[in-house]
């Protein structure tokens, strides 16, 4: 059917009313609130970092009263009026990136120009099988002020408070603490939580356990770098961090417990008061509770025995975990923390 000129003119007038009611500069807003701060301990972050277009779910990026009502069923114009380019473009756009980026050979290593399989990762020249002309340790934490490499350690050394990955169970919950101010979710990491010693942190519930991460190490604190058994860890103001990979990004897992402070002279961060008192931990009624039980639970959990979130109460789950540990170590599965069991646990 051919549209009549009268219908076309009428449609144009109606559209003009809808489209140009408000001024164009009011209509066009990018709706992005950019704060380049990152999730870092100390609570000095604020806002969220990342590509500004990634507005966190549930967070309002621009005031509701600035939203222009648009007819829901009309198509977007292909010949838009000249609208001002948004001045609130993300500050993290490439133009603002530091100029210390290594000079990658454009003609050879850029993907678009790569001839076949000639310069795929395995064929890259340079040290090992990696691109060659990049700055050495350009942005390693240890090279920044406030970071110092750790002293030489014996093979197999584990820093005090060390726990392997996966030590937090899937049901782990962040410690309850009122944050100093509300912080919107991060576009990538999601909800933030706060704890004084950790600052702002986020969690990841993956298939096997819960991980507690920060995006960067605390810049205001001096951190000691520790390399051990294929892992890189940092002790910053008594909190142990482990360099990790999550969502294809480098993050730092907080290994320490909330109330736990790592002391350089501590050989495990485990209380030994139960031995001094001569008490024997086991399942009793009423149940035993305290730091001794908490230390036992942490140690069992660190060794992979599932007992839920360590809470300092010797319950049935702790009893099962202790008996399992005893069985696995050729000890009598009594559920009682005997001297032999304590010794096997490293207490």
């Amino acid at each position, binding site marked *: 059917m051919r*549209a009549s000129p009268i219908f*076309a003119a009428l*449609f*144009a007038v109606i*559209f*003009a009313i809808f*489209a*140009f009611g408000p001024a164009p500069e009011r209509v066009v807003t*990018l*709706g*992005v609130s950019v704060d380049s701060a990152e999730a870092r301990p100390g609570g000095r972050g604020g806002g969220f970092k990342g*590509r500004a*277009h*990634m*507005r966190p779910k549930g967070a309002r*990026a621009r005031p509701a009263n600035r939203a222009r009502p648009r007819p829901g069923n009309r198509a977007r*114009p*292909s*010949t838009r*009026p000249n609208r001002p380019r*948004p001045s609130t473009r993300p500050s993290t756009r*490439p133009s603002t990136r530091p100029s210390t*980026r290594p000079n990658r050979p454009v003609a050879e290593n850029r*993907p*678009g120009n*790569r*001839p*076949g*399989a000639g310069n*795929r*990762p*395995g*064929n890259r020249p340079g*040290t090992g*099988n*990696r*691109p060659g002309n990049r700055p050495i*340790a*350009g*942005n390693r934490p240890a090279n920044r002020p406030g970071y110092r490499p750790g002293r030489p350690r014996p093979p197999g050394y584990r820093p005090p408070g060390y726990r392997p*990955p*996966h030590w937090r*169970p899937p049901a782990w919950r962040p410690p309850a603490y009122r944050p100093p101010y509300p912080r919107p979710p991060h576009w990538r990491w999601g909800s933030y939580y706060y704890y004084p010693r950790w600052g702002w942190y986020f969690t*990841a519930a*993956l*298939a*096997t*356990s819960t991980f507690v991460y920060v995006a960067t190490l605390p810049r205001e604190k001096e951190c000691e770098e520790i*390399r051990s058994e*294929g*892992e*890189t860890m940092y002790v910053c103001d008594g909190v142990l961090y*482990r*360099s*990790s*990979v*999550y*969502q*294809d990004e*480098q993050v730092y897992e907080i290994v320490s417990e909330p109330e736990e402070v790592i002391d350089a002279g501590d050989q495990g961060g485990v209380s030994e008061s139960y031995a001094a008192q001569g008490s024997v931990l086991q399942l009793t009624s009423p149940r035993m509770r305290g730091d001794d039980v908490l230390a036992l639970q942490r140690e069992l959990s660190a060794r992979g025995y599932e007992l839920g979130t360590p809470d300092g109460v010797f319950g049935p789950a702790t009893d099962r975990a202790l008996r399992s540990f005893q069985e696995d170590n050729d000890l009598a599965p009594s559920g009682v923390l005997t001297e032999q069991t304590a010794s096997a646990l490293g207490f």
Partner: protein
Amino acid sequence: MSVNALPALAWALALICASSMNAPWAAAQDQSTEQAQEAPAAESDEAAEPEEPDAEAIVLDSVEFLAGLPAFGFNWFVSYDVVDDGREKLTFTRSGSNLIVRGEGFSASSEEGFKLRDYYYDGETFTVSAPEEDFYASRKFDQGFEALVVALRERTDTVLPLWTIMAEDLPDRMVTGADLAAYVGLTRIGGVVAHHIAFAGYQEDWQIWIADDPDAPVPIYIVGTESDEKGWPQYRAWLSDWDLAPETTPEQFVFTPDENDLPAALPDLAARPTTAEPASEEAQQ
């Protein structure tokens, strides 16, 4: 008429013009409708035009071809839209190259903005490295490429770039769920003669250009449109420099760290989910 109203009029006219334009999709639908109407006549007409190629069959041939290759590599360039606040559409890019030798290894490199990542898998150890950030993370994993993809997604929330194309079970994954399939036509794209095929589904429409080469029906270009999302964001993947018989060495799938590289932790990819523990307890009993 004010000046501000002129673009509105132009747009209104453009809408009217668009309604009479034969867009490819509309053309495909019109064509199929006309063919359906003229079908009885065509059956009796000896000079009828050759039958239109089967869109799904072309795609299936392509994925079966890829799944049957013992080794191949390609370069890729992906652009994708992000619609902010359902209004502002921004486009970002990612590019890289992939190489797989079935049963031996896989390697890929990816560049997204200033973020570089290299991936290595030699059948026993997976490594992701950040060449410009001087860290890498390795884990033992001997369950094969397809299982590696699942483990990485579940335990590190990491997705290997364009892994779908390299999966050996690609034909089994080709459950399109499309409501409509159309063979748009034969065309030339980037110097390659290719079939242009379009699928439409409830949540996503996608188009694919497949090389018109019986010996190498590789995908050249893929465009997806999330029609169920505000702003209809798209992604576009350009696959080029196909190498169907790459010369590789085992060293290509093994990462060799520099002395300045710091190891980072990667969760145990082979760890059993804790949800399996009750079952194991029952087994012990």
